[in-house]
Structures are given as C-alpha cells and as structure tokens.
C-alpha cells in the first residue's frame, strides 16, 4: 500500500502536469475567443465548455472509447499502442480534459478585461502584434491568468469521475487523492478518509483564497486605470 504522502505527491504531480498541458492550447483558445471574431466561434466555445456540463463519467467513457484498441486513437487505428488506459498518463489526460473548460473560461475573462484600446496604443508605438501580446496583453491579464491556472489546477486535483473510468483506481499506480478518499470511505477506513479530506480542504482553500485575492487586486487596478 502506498503511503498517504505518496498518494498526495503523485496527485499533485499529475495535477501540475495537467495544468501545464492545458496552459498552451488553453491560452490560445481563450485569447481567440476573447479577441477575434471568426466563423464557428460559438461552436468552439461550446466544445471547450462541454466537459464542465457533462457528467465526468461520460467524459471518462468517451475518452475510454477514444483510446480503446478500436478507438480513433487506439492500436488498431494508429498502428501502435499509446498505452494510456489504466496508466498514470490516463490520469493526466482525464485531469487535463476536465480542467480545460474552467481554465479557458477564466483566462478568456482575463483577456477580455484588458482594454483593447491599450493594445492599439501599443501598435501606434511601433509594437507588432506579438510584442503587443507579450508586453501589454499578457502582463495586464496576468493576475486573471494565474487565477485561471489555479482554478484549473484545483479542478485537476479533485478530478474523480473521468479519471476512475479511464485510469481506474489502482493504489500505487493510478490512485489519486479523490479516488483514495473514495476507497477509504468504501472500506470503512475513516481515519485515512479524514486525513485525505483535511488535505483536500486545505489545498482547495489555499487555491480559491489566492484566486479571490488576485481577483480583488485586479478589480481595484481596473478602477484606478479607469
């Protein structure tokens, strides 16, 4: 049996990995949704939000179908085995998919809060689009983007439904904080369940509290800038 520390540290590691995986495409999609008008924008926005409203088990099942031997990314289709199902990679993938919507939605709001006229000002000062993004948009949206990352991270940390279907609940291999708590409760190990609950509460509180602080600083800066 893995110790509680091992469970917590691997859960944290997987959540960090999931946050990193989400960050790049998440930023790009959030920026597109916040700043550009294009055909299919609403469809893209709906697709990125879907995992938030679907039952997590449905998302897990969908992923299972996707990575199954006969699935679109299965061995028979692509010619080799990605070895995803029931592995730590499955945990990271399930967590990424489930935290993607909350990251994109929060990051989109962060980008939308940046006054586009400031970006245009940057262009009149000789900055190309890339430089405007890096030296104006990104720093001005940074607090909101950190909040998005934190919320995405906590969502990944607490993921259960999709993970348990795609990765299972194998102690020492794919067991996360959430699935360990489930197992402890099911097997009547109240002491362990309580400890895991304490950890979940602590991490969740820190993340949400930090997000709140960032949000309040952001709104006060917005008032000053206005």
């Amino acid at each position, binding site marked *: 049996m893995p110790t509680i520390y091992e469970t917590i540290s691997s859960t944290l590691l997987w959540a960090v990995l999931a946050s990193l995986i989400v960050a790049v495409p998440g930023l790009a999609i959030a920026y597109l949704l916040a700043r550009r008008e294009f055909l299919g924008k609403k469809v893209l926005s709906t697709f990125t939000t879907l995992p938030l409203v679907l039952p997590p088990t449905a998302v897990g099942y969908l992923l299972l179908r996707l990575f199954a031997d006969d699935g679109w990314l299965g061995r028979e289709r692509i010619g080799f085995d990605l070895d995803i199902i029931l592995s730590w990679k499955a945990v990271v993938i399930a967590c990424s998919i489930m935290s993607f919507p909350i990251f994109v939605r929060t990051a989109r709001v962060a980008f939308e809060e940046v006054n586009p006229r400031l970006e245009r*000002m940057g262009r009149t000062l000789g900055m190309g689009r890339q430089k405007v993004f890096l030296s104006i948009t990104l720093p001005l949206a940074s607090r909101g983007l950190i909040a998005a990352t934190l919320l995405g991270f906590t969502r990944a940390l607490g993921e259960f439904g999709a993970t348990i279907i795609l990765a299972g609940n194998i102690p020492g291999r794919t067991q996360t904080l959430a699935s360990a708590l489930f197992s402890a409760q099911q097997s009547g190990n109240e002491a362990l369940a309580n400890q895991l609950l304490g950890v979940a509460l602590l991490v969740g509180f820190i993340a949400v509290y930090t997000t709140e602080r960032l949000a309040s600083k952001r709104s006060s800066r917005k008032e000053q800038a206005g």
Partner: protein
Amino acid sequence: MNEVETIFNISLKARFGDLKLDLEYKGSKHVLGVFGVSGAGKTTFLECLAGLRKVMSGQIAVAGEIWLDTETNCFVRTEKRYVGYVPQDHLLFPHKNVRGNLEAGKARAVESGPDFQSVLKKVVAVLELEPLLDRSIDQLSGGERQRVSLGRALCSGPKLLLLDEPLASLDLPLRRKILPFLIRTKEAFELPMVVVSHNPTELQVLCDEVLILENGRNVMVGSPNELFTSDSLFEVAKQHGFENVFSGAIIEKSDQVDRLSLSGKDGEISIQIPATDALVGDRVLASIGSDNVLIGLEQPRGLSARNCLSATISRIENAGTRWLVHSVVADAVSDFVVEVTSDAIEALQLESGARIYLVFKTSSVSTLTG
C-alpha cells in the same frame, strides 16, 4: 522660390456604422486642426490616419511617405506608420511606471534614427517630467497623465503626431497649464501634427490650418481665424468658445495687472491684462471675446476701460444674426474681430479702411497660459 512641400495628401472613403467618412485634404501646413461637433468623425479620421481602421478606398501620404493607397493595395500597418497618438483619455499602460510608459516605443524610436536617450532627455525637459519618472500611473493627476501620454508618443520616434482632444478631459485651470506644453511641443519638435478639437481657441493657438468636419465630410478648409469668423461657422464656434487670441510678452508687472506687449517692437502696442504668474519676458497667450470689445471712432476719454487700441477695419462680414468687424491693429498682431449690430454699423458708418479705436476692460481679457 522653392516649391512648397506637401505634408498631407489625404483622400478617404469609408463607412463605420452610421458614420460615412468621405474627405479629401492636401496641405503644406505643419499643424492641421480638425474641428467638428461630436459625432462628426474626428476621432475616426485620426484612427484612419493611424491605420487603426480599415478604409474602403483612398490614399494617405504624410511628408512624402505613402501609408495607404487602395489602388495599389498598399497598406502600411499601424506600427510601421511612425505616428505618435495621444488619445483623449491618455491610455497610459497601468502596469508600467512613467519611465516604462515613456520607453514603451523605444524599439521603434531606436530604429527611426535619433539617439533615444537624447530624445528622452529632451522630452522630459520640455514636458517637465523629471519628478514623475519613477511614479506609478495611479499616482498621477489628470494633467500629468496627459503630459506623460504626450511624452510617450514623442519618445516613440514619430513622424506625425496625432492629438485627439488633448485638453477635453481637463478642467479649465488645468487646460491653461497643459496648453503651454502643447505649444512647446509644437515649437521644440517641429513635427507635423493633426490636432482634433471641438474648441476653436485651442485650434487657433496650435494650428496653421483647420479642416472642418461635418458628418464625416470636410466642408471647409482655411486658417482658424478665417474659418471661425465665417458666416456659416461663427455661431457654432462661439458656442464652443471662439475668442480673439493674442500672443505677447509680459513687459511690466504690478500686484493686480500685467502689461502685455503685442507687437515685437519695444511694446509699442501693448494691453493691460489681469495679473498672471508669468514673469517679465515670458510669452503669454491672452484672449478676449468678440462681444467684449467696443468700437469708437475717436479715442475715448474718461472711461474706466484700460485698453484702447488704434486699428483699421479690413472687412465687415455678416455672420448669421450678427455682423463682424475685422480690424488690423498691427502687422504682427492677428486679426481682431468685434461683434456689432447692423444699427451700429449704420450709425458709425463703419466701412473697410476706416480708422477705429478698440476699447475693452482689463478684466475681460483672459490668459490662456501662465
């Protein structure tokens, strides 16, 4: 004689929502003013010049460089147009301090030639920004923000400066403080400028030529004084604060009044104005409303009004419901406009070439700077 260089060669056709922009302008004056009421398309025009809006058809060439020509599919992007844009609401970057804002356009300034540090030094000196450099934006007052915004544009190596209602967001006392900085900018940097304003006095002070915009079309072009006293525009201009504006040097000071020399030669022609903070020798702009001046055929005696200038009528024009007497006080002094009724013209038999005396009280003169 050298051929006069064309600075602005603009022809634009565009539609933005309800606004249809359709104008042509070609001019060789350095500072172009754009006057019009709200919704006339002034800001949109500036944004087209800056390349921030797509134009359906047209050409823009400034100081010999073509920025837009829809016939040849030429469109120079905003960042390559070398414009310094000063928006009405300053739009400083809140995540940078004053120095950071001034250096925001450094990369382009370096590219455009002059040594950036010396430009920065000059801008800081002209706009008196030294004490503000390390401050964050939220520590600045409205007038300071406007100066920093102007400084930021000047530090980016611009070839054209666009000022959008540079004083509109400021209250009256602050406008008086900021206007001299705009005049200094004009004199120190000698850049082509386009100044948008709905205040005739600002345009009189800053611009060599003014373009009148009405529903996106340029209906008139001319010198500010000529336009604002014209039949069709005088009423509107007066409503927005048209006054006779004079530039002069303080030659004498006392507790309550200053004496302002209007003509260059030893204060030969001078007027008394309310006391200012300016020192002897300082240049000051003064203004007086066209309805605050009396016309006399003889030099009046026994009046409390302290100012009496001898002048010659250059022309008399009808402007809506009023008559405007244009008179010349001296070569170096700009045209002096006085509003009179048709009765007065008849009674005094005023006509072009007649010699008159312009009489006004010290207290009806206001100073625009100092």
